C-alpha cells in the first residue's frame, strides 16, 4: 500500500468538494457532513450548527476507522468500507473514498439510514473524481506554495514557539 506524501487541494477542487457536501447535507437533512483525510485532518466541514472540537472529532473518527480496518484484516475480510455509529439522538455514518479520504455524515432519527447510504454512495463517486484530479495536480501545485522562503519562515516560527 503506497502512501502519498502530500496532497494539495486547490480552490477549484475545494469548491467541488464543498458543492458535493452541501448537496449531501441538504438532500439527507443531516446535521453535519465532513470530509476527512485518513490521517484525521479535516478537509471540509459543513453543517447546520457549528460543531465544537471539529479537530478532535476528525482525529477520533479517522482513528476509529483505521482501527476497524485492522479488525477486518484479523477476520480475513479485505476491509470494512463503512462504519455506522448509532446514538440516542444522533448517528454517524462513515464511508471510505478510495483509500485516501473519509466521508462522514452526522444525522438524527428523522433521517433514514437507507437514504444516507444511497446518497453517500453518489457523493463518494463524485469525490473519487475530485480526488483523482487532486492527485494528478498535487506536485505541480505544491511548488507554487512550498518554496525556500516558506520553509525558512516556518523553521523560524518553530524555533520561536516550540520552547518552554
Amino acid at each position: 500500500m503506497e502512501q502519498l506524501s502530500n496532497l494539495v487541494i486547490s480552490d477549484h477542487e475545494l469548491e467541488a468538494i464543498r458543492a458535493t457536501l452541501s448537496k449531501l447535507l441538504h438532500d439527507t437533512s443531516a446535521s453535519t457532513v465532513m470530509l476527512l483525510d485518513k490521517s484525521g485532518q479535516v478537509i471540509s466541514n459543513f453543517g447546520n450548527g457549528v460543531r465544537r472540537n471539529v479537530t478532535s472529532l476528525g482525529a477520533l473518527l479517522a482513528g476509529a476507522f483505521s482501527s476497524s480496518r485492522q479488525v477486518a484484516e484479523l477476520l480475513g475480510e479485505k476491509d470494512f468500507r463503512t462504519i455506522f455509529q448509532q446514538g440516542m439522538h444522533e448517528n454517524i455514518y462513515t464511508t471510505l473514498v478510495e483509500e485516501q479520504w473519509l466521508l462522514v455524515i452526522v444525522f438524527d432519527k428523522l433521517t433514514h439510514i437507507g437514504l444516507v447510504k444511497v446518497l453517500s454512495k453518489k457523493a463518494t463517486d463524485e469525490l473519487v473524481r475530485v480526488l483523482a484530479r487532486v492527485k494528478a495536480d498535487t506536485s505541480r501545485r505544491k511548488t507554487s506554495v512550498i518554496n525556500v522562503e516558506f520553509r525558512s519562515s516556518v523553521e523560524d516560527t518553530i524555533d520561536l514557539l516550540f520552547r518552554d
Partner: protein
Amino acid sequence: MALINIATHEIHCKIVYYGIGYCGKTTNLQYVYKSINPAIRGEMLSIATETERTLFFDFLPLDLGTVHGFRTRFHLYTVPGQILYERTRLAVLNGADGIVFVVDSQAEKFEENVQSIAELEMYMRRLGKDLGHFPFVMQWNKRDLPSALPVHVLDRYLNRRRVPAFEAVASSGVGVFATLRAISKSVIAQL
C-alpha cells in the same frame, strides 16, 4: 500525509510518537501541553484505560498561526506502547508525516526497545514508506535513571540510520522541545 489546502490556506502535518510501554510518549505530549503558549495549542485528547495507560492514542493539535500566508498546524499523536496493542499502533501510524521514536534508556528495557524499532520498520514497509527516507528522530528518554545505558551504546544499537537523537528526561521537560523542534523541521523539509 501532509495536507496542503490552498483554498483555505492551511497546511496540516501529523507527527507520531512511537515506543514501548511506559517509555514516556504521553509524558512528552503532556509536557508540551503544559509548557507551550496556550494560544498555540488545542485541547489534548487522551484515550486511556482506567489506570491511565494509553488505550488508543493521545492527540494534541498545535497551531503555528499564519506563516508566509499559510496557517500551519502540527497534530501530535502517541501510539499505545503495550505489546497487545500492536494493531492499534499500525492504525495510528497511518498517514504520519514524521515519527519520534522514544527510547526508555534503562538497561532492562533494551531488548524491548530493539523489538519495538523492528516492529516500526516493518509497519512502515507495510505502509509503503522507507524509514531511511522519512522524517524520523530518536529520543533517549529517562536519562536521569541509574540504570540508563550510555548514549553511545543506545546510538550504536538502536540508531543504525544515524538520525538526529536527543537526550531527555520527559517528566521534567528536558529534551522535549528540542525533539519536537527537530521532528517538525524535518517534516517541513520533506514537504
